[in-house]
């Protein structure tokens, strides 16, 4: 910590927490950017191309994607805060290990608490909890941001990046569940699929059938690819030269 002897304890704490210059409030312009950037021009999935593994694995249906998003947001915000708090104590040679331990411990803690008090949610999450530990967005932000910034900024960065991740996840899951199973959140939105045309309703009665390929992982990658394409065509500055 810097030597702040001439400041009162309270001022010191505010400085430590907000880590901003005095002209900026807790949600000043710079800090708002931390929240909004990852949603668009610095999206962790489409621009930084991180977190693709879980984007493939759990976007078959909307519900697991939403649950996963909330879990990732919790873990990212808190792990960013903890690593930021420890940033001046962590020996640089083992910083990756320290980050991994922080993330893994948080994930296990979240999982244990859910299992005791929100059993149904924990069943939803069962498979995905391990995926949070290995999610490169979490580690990436710890390494790139939390190690060099204050607690409040790191917290915002965690929330922002998790929101950017959630946005793409939910978008992909929306298309995969809709086109692959004709449902959204488990509700049949395109009509009921019967065994024959006669006992089907809605679009299925007109001869529409689901695209089974959408349920398989490759289509998740292609969907993410299409989103990246659309984003690059709207914002040309994102296109890498050469």
């Amino acid at each position, binding site marked *: 910590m810097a030597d702040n002897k001439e400041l009162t304890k309270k001022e010191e704490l505010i400085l430590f927490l907000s880590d901003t210059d005095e002209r900026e409030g807790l949600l000043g312009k710079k800090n708002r950017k931390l929240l909004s950037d990852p949603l668009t021009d610095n999206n962790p999935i489409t621009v930084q191309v991180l977190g693709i593994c879980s984007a493939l*694995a*759990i976007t*078959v*249906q909307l519900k*697991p994607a939403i649950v996963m998003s909330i879990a990732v947001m919790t873990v990212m915000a808190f792990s960013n805060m903890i690593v930021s708090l420890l940033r001046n*104590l*962590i*020996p*640089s*040679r*083992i910083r990756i*290990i*320290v980050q991994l*331990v922080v993330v893994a*411990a948080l994930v*296990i*803690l979240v999982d*244990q*608490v859910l*299992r*005791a*008090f929100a*059993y149904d949610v924990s069943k939803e999450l*069962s*498979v995905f909890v391990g995926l949070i530990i290995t999610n490169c967005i979490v580690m990436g932000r710890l390494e790139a941001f939390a190690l060099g910034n204050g607690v409040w900024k790191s917290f915002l960065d965690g929330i922002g990046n998790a929101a950017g991740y959630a946005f793409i996840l939910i978008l992909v899951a929306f298309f*995969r*569940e809709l086109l*692959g*199973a004709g449902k959204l959140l488990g509700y049949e939105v395109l009509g009921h699929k019967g*065994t024959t045309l006669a006992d089907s309703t809605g679009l299925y009665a007109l001869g529409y059938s689901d695209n*089974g390929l959408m*349920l*398989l992982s490759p289509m998740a990658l292609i969907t993410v690819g299409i989103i990246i394409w659309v984003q690059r065509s709207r914002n040309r500055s994102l296109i890498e030269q050469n």
Partner: protein
Amino acid sequence: MDRNSNAYTFLFAVIMVAVVASALAFAATSLQPAQAENVKQEKMQNILSTVGVETSRDSAEMLFNKYIVEQVALDNNGQEKDGVNAFTVDLKKELKRPVEEQAFPLYVADVEGTKYYVVPLRGKGLWDAIWGYVALKDDINTIKGVVFDHKGETPGLGAEITQGWFKKRFEDEKIMDEAGNFIGVSVAKGYQGGDNKDDNAVDAISGATITGDGVTDMISERLKNYLPYFKSQTNVKMASN
């Protein structure tokens, strides 16, 4: 202390591991009773739902005690094993033992005067374990209901075995062929039988062939060990196989 020295690095690592380990150990042990209670209630809920009693987790225990009239642990010859509590038998451990030493739990339910036999199942899916319960009517042939669960099957594909529409396919299916030989129920890919309940097969889930095969194997592997008991219990004509 120099933050780049070996001593500091070791010290930091040791303290970090101690803090994290004790925090996690504390969380795990203090939350354990609540977690175990949830698992127990869910098990009761699952067993009840196979015999057509749907309940919330809170009232599962009360209804379980009301409808489940008998719990026995059997050996593979249909004899009761003394001193084994059927409800606490852990199939995961049992499956690792030779079949002669295994305990086979069985729950007998009495719902409004109708008798059902509920058999716990456990097998392998595509990625990890799958398990469940199957309830037989007292002709030891017709399935009253099933419940399936899994540890790590793919959401939207294999994980769909837990869904109501898949479980419904098993209702009223037979586990014996017409001659009375036990064959179980197979989850068949490209099934054309429609609503035929006498062909010992149900339609598979597209994209989840291996999970479906796991369900097929689990039903036949587990149920066949109960046949000696069922033969001794009932007057149902069963072919000797």
